[in-house]
């Protein structure tokens, strides 16, 4: 179909008056992009339609204009607060964000301080532990020291401790590695087993790990044992074997 036929087909009128189908519209718009002549023809028809419609105008009821203008003002006003509302929201969000960041900053710097002091404390402790160990090393002459690894019994399989026993000067040190926390009315008690007798070497609490305690001295020991006893001053004279938590045999003196 050539352009003249297309123009004469009634498509222009159909398009302008809103009677063309979707595909006809698309085609017409595409053709208009290609042929200025078609656009000019469309313009002519639109102008004649407009001028005829203006001639045939009917004045609308007088109150309609005021109603429309009022409706538009209302629409515009409802449009504006929305943007102010958004602005307020953004401002509020910014303030909240800022406050949040300040709070976060203080928290982080507080945490940093706490961490630093905890670190220092830890370092101090390590240093003091090291000092103690060095002291023990100095005091306990290594060649004559028996290290007894205390093995946890069924009752307390996790418990672990070492006894350092210097047979030359009879001194006993206990290194608590991991002993379960006890009820407040209980305490641990270390015993030396000597020829089927049990000698009280003192009581201790296991509130801290990896501490070294000086216990009572003993000249002889075939084994050491730790029991849990009722908290009394100086400890029980005889162990409650039911509550034996750890035991370790010495390799010497047997």
């Amino acid at each position: 179909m050539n352009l003249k036929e297309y123009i004469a087909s009634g498509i222009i009128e159909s398009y302008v008056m809103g009677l063309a189908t979707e595909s006809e519209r698309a085609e017409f718009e595409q053709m208009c992009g290609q042929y200025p002549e078609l656009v000019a023809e469309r313009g002519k028809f639109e102008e004649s339609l407009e001028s005829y419609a203006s001639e045939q105008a009917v004045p609308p009821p007088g109150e309609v204009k005021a109603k429309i203008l009022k409706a538009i003002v209302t629409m515009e006003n409802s449009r504006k607060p929305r943007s102010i509302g958004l602005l307020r929201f953004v401002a509020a969000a910014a303030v909240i964000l800022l406050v949040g960041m300040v709070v976060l900053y203080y928290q982080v710097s507080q945490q940093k301080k706490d961490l630093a002091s905890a670190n220092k404390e830890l370092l101090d402790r390590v240093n003091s532990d090291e000092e103690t160990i060095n002291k023990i090393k100095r005091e306990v002459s290594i060649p004559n020291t028996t290290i007894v690894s205390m093995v946890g019994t069924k009752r307390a399989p996790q418990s672990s401790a070492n006894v350092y026993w210097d047979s030359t000067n009879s001194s006993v040190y206990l290194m608590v590695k991991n002993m379960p926390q006890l009820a407040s009315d209980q305490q641990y008690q270390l015993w030396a087993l000597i020829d089927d007798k049990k000698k009280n070497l003192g009581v201790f609490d296991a509130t801290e790990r990896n501490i070294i305690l000086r216990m009572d001295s003993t000249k002889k020991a075939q084994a050491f044992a730790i029991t849990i006893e009722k908290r009394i001053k100086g400890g029980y004279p005889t162990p409650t074997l039911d509550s034996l938590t750890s035991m370790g045999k010495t390799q010497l003196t047997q």
Partner: protein
Amino acid sequence: MGMPNTYTEQQLVAALKERDNPAFVFLYDHYSGALYSIIRQIIGDNGELAGDVLQEVFINIWRKIESYDQTKGRLFTWMLNIARNASIDTLRSKGYQNARKNQELPENVYKAASNQTTQQNVDNIGLKKLLEKLKPEHRVLVELAYFKGFTHEEIAEMMTIPLGTVKTRIRNALLQLREYLK
């Protein structure tokens, strides 16, 4: 009062897209009569209802002016189609149908349409007046398509004539109308 007396179409569209109130007042003053006329031609002799439709149409123009594309046609063409669509929607709305309960049902719209052209003179203005010059078989198709908003398919079914015939007759009728407009 600083309100321009005239605008070129370009200026008017630009001002409307800027949501310029005086431009909108100008638009109303210049086009409300023509648009009110087409509304009356479609929904009939109910001035109050037509006024409501006109209000809706201008509010839609205000709202949708951003989407108006000058490459696709004149501003008036665009507004005329908004007015026509709003009028047809009103025609089909429940409220309108209920208000005309005792009149023709939509299935009998062909009958209603042909009755209307002979009975009503009050709104026999504008394009509708031009329809009288058409051959009856053309007139009824334009009436159904343009003034009642039926699709070509619906009309073909309603009138039991082939779709191709409906399309050709409507196109021919429109070409004839164009001649009358000159």
